[in-house]
C-alpha cells in the first residue's frame, strides 16, 4: 500500500515540477517583452524598424570609379585595410573589340585604377560599385547553422558577430561575394547599409561621400523617397536575377556583361 502511495506521490511531483518549468519558460520571454515595451514608452523618438524598408540604387553611368565609397566604408566600419577585405568595392569592366570582358578591381578601387593596357581596343568600359545586395530572400541567412545572420524588419541583412561561430558557410553561399571573415573578430562581416547611421537618420557612409550621387539610398516603399523616384524614372536591373534572391540593391544602366 505504501509503495503505491509513493509512486503516486512521485508522479504528482514530477507533473508539478514540469508544469513549473513550463511556466518559467513562458514567463521569461513575456517578462523581457514587457521590458522592451517599457523602454519604447520611455523613449518616444526611438527608431521603429517596422516603418522602414531600405534599398540602394546604383547609377552606373554616374560612377567615376574614384573609390571614395570603398574608402569611406573601411573608415566608417573598421574594415581591415588589407586589400582583400571589403564591404563595398568598385569593379572596372572593359569589353574589348573581341567582346571579351576584362574585370579588375585593384585594392577595391580605393587607390584608383591604372590606365588600361589597351585603350585602342576598348569597345565599352564602365565602373560597377558592388556591395551586399540585402536580398529579400538571402541565401546567406538560409545556410547559417546558428542563426547568426538574419534579415531585420527594415529589410537589412545583418550579422550577429557575438553569436557567429565563423564557419564561413554564409561566405560560400553569397552569390555576390559580399562577405568576408573578419580577421580579428573571427566572425563573418558584411555591409550593413551602415545600420548604425541609417537608424539615426543619416546616410550610409558610401552614399555620403559619393561625389556624383551615383549611389542613392532610401526607402523602397516610401513614395517620396529618392530611391522610389529612381525606381519610377529609370530602368532598373539587379545582379543575378535568375537566382531569385530579389536584391534590394538596384542598378540603372547595367550592362548585360556584369556578373
Amino acid at each position, binding site marked *: 500500500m505504501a509503495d503505491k502511495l509513493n509512486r503516486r506521490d512521485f508522479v504528482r511531483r514530477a507533473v508539478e515540477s514540469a508544469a513549473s518549468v513550463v511556466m518559467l519558460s513562458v514567463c521569461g520571454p513575456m517578462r523581457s517583452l514587457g521590458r522592451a515595451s517599457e523602454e519604447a514608452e520611455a523613449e518616444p523618438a526611438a527608431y521603429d524598424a517596422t516603418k522602414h524598408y531600405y534599398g540602394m540604387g546604383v547609377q552606373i553611368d554616374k560612377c567615376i570609379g574614384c573609390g571614395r565609397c570603398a574608402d569611406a566604408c573601411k573608415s566608417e566600419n573598421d574594415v581591415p585595410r588589407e586589400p582583400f577585405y571589403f564591404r563595398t568595392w568598385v569593379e572596372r569592366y572593359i569589353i574589348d573589340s573581341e567582346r571579351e570582358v576584362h574585370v579588375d578591381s585593384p585594392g577595391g578601387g580605393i587607390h584608383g585604377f591604372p590606365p588600361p593596357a589597351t585603350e585602342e581596343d576598348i569597345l565599352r568600359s564602365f565602373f560597377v560599385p558592388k556591395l551586399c545586395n540585402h536580398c529579400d530572400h538571402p541565401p546567406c541567412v538560409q545556410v547559417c547553422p546558428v542563426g547568426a545572420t538574419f534579415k531585420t*524588419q527594415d529589410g537589412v541583412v*545583418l550579422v*550577429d558577430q557575438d553569436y557567429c561561430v565563423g564557419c564561413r558557410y554564409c561566405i560560400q553561399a553569397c552569390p555576390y561575394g559580399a562577405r568576408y571573415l573578419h580577421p580579428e573578430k573571427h566572425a563573418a562581416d558584411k555591409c550593413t547599409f551602415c545600420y548604425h547611421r541609417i537608424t539615426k537618420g543619416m546616410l550610409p557612409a558610401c552614399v555620403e*561621400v559619393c561625389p556624383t550621387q551615383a549611389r542613392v539610398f532610401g526607402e523602397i516603399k516610401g513614395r517620396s523617397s529618392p530611391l522610389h523616384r529612381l525606381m519610377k524614372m529609370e530602368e532598373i536591373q539587379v545582379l543575378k536575377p535568375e537566382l531569385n534572391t530579389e536584391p534590394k540593391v538596384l542598378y540603372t544602366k547595367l550592362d548585360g556583361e556584369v556578373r
Partner: protein
Amino acid sequence: MKKLNLSIGKVPDQAVRIGAVFLIGIGSMVVLRQRFIPESFGELGHYRANAIPVVAGAPLHYAGWQTCGACHQDELDKKLEGFHRTLSCETCHGPAYEHAVVDPTATTPTVPRGRETCLTCHGYLPSRPTGFPQIIELQHNPMEPCIKCHNPHNPATEEETPACSGCHGQIARTKAISHHSLLACETCHVTPAEHKENPRQYLPKKPTNREFCGQCHGEGTPTSGTLLGVDLSARDIPKVDVETHGNTYLCWQCHYPHFPEGK
C-alpha cells in the same frame, strides 16, 4: 495464477514508468533550452533580437556635410555655388565625426593639397562617363598643385574653362585629329546655356536626320565658298546620294561624327 488487474482508474505500472521517463525527458529539454538558447533569440525571428542594438550602436566616423556648416558656413556656401556642390565635405577631408561632434580641437580633418587627391576623380580614364571633367596628368600643367589655379570649394577658374573640351576632352582630342577638326561643336550640337551649370538637366541637341549631314555631304552641294564657317575650296568633301546611301540607317549609325574616317 494471478489475475490481471485491469480495472478502470488503475494505471499500469509500466505506463507510469514510461510516463515518468517522458516527463523527465521533456523537463530536461525545457531546462536545456532555457539554458542554451540565448536571451531574445526568436523574439523577432530565428536570431537574437539583442544583436540589432549592438550593430546599431557601432561608433560613427562620418558626421555628414550638414554638421560642417554649423561652423564652416562660408566654405559650405562657396561649395554650394560651384560644381562641387554635390560633394560631401568628408569626401576630400576624410571622416570628421570626432572633430565635428565630439571635440573640434582634438583632431583636425585632413586638408589635401597635392595633385593626387584631385586626380582620384579628375585623372583621365576611358572608363569614366563621357562629360565628366578629366585631365591628362602629364599634359595639364604638370607638377603644379591644382589649388594654384582651382579653389577646391568652387573649382571654376578665373580663366574661362574651354566651352566644350573642358569636360568632353576625349571627344575634343578625337575630333582634333579627324577630318571634322575645323567644325565647331555648336555646328552640330545646339547647346542650351544652362548645360554648363546643370550638365545632366539640360542636354545639348544632336542632329536628328540624314539631311543634316547632307548639307555638306549630299550630291550637288557647293564645293566652293564657305559653309558652316568652313572654307570649302580645295577640300575633298566626300559626296553621297543622301536619299539612297546606307539604306535606311542614319549617318551616325555607321560613321562616328567625331572621327568619321575611322573604321
